[in-house]
């Protein structure tokens, strides 16, 4: 399959410019297969991508035929170059999408836990909450524990939870640390009792 002569190309281009209603079918018939050959031997998915690229280029040309300037070169060259560029863009876009999906997949895989792990953690958390509710912890200690478990790092916020916000800064810092350490030890004991109960 070969391209038409330059004269034939120009005649067809003139018809396209005049908005001849059947000229688009002739453009497809004349250019599709020669451009596909110019893009190289393609099979399967690559062939489909090549067809889609050529179709995009031909529709783009038919929508705006004035963009092609005949004095700058042949119509077949203009359309083939545009199709090559479109195909390259399509490959790059596919590669970028696949890379993004792979990166997302990796990140998701790293962050995800197996269903068994997730179930175990859920059961342990429920058991810990029950133990905490049954414990003799005071209201202030519970509030402080809640803040610690949520990752709170402000001494002032923790001091407010246990009613020590009015203390001078040094005293406040020391007292908050003392309460925090005491609670952590209590938690460790609770955890140990739990594991002893299971064994």
């Amino acid at each position: 399959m070969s391209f038409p002569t330059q004269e034939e190309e120009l005649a067809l281009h003139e018809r396209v410019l005049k908005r001849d209603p059947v000229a688009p079918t002739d453009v497809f018939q004349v250019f599709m297969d020669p451009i596909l050959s110019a893009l190289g031997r393609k099979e399967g998915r690559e062939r489909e991508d090549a067809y889609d690229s050529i179709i995009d280029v031909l529709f783009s040309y038919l929508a705006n035929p004035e963009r092609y300037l005949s004095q700058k070169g042949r119509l077949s060259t203009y359309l083939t170059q545009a199709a090559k560029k479109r195909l390259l863009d399509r490959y790059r876009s596919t590669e970028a999408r696949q890379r993004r999906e792979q990166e997302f997949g990796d990140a998701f895989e790293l962050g995800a836990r197996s269903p068994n792990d997730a179930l175990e953690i859920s059961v342990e958390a429920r058991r810990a909450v029950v133990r905490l509710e049954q414990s003799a912890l005071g209201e202030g200690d519970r509030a402080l524990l809640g803040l610690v478990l949520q990752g709170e790092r402000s001494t002032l916020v923790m001091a407010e939870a246990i009613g020590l916000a009015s203390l001078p800064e040094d005293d406040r810092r020391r007292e908050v640390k003392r309460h925090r350490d005491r609670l952590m030890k209590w938690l460790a004991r609770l955890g140990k009792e739990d594991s002893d109960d299971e064994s």
Partner: protein
Amino acid sequence: MTNPEWLERAARRSRSETWMLGHVFERYRELEGRTQEELAKELGCTPDVLHWLSLCRRPEGQDFDEQASAIAKRFAVDLVSLVQVLRHVEVMETLSRQVGNGDTLEEQPMQSAARDRTRDSENNS
């Protein structure tokens, strides 16, 4: 006319171009609930010829009759049926634009002209 493997793909793509006949056919099939085969039968052609027709530019403006005739002659389809499909979609698109713009649904010159043209075509055939 032989049918290349890209024909159906190109015809499908033509639906997204409002200036293509493929777009008109798609709108008509949506409005009237027709299958490809039913529309082809209505136009008096095969589904393959319908794909080729889809790759034609949509007739419009002052040369509408001439353009529609050229298409009908080239692909040997029924001119009256083709014009009816084109005008039906044109009227519906005009109506939906008017409704979208908040205009009233009183008859507009475009609609009466479309109906007159269709009647003329029917009488002449």
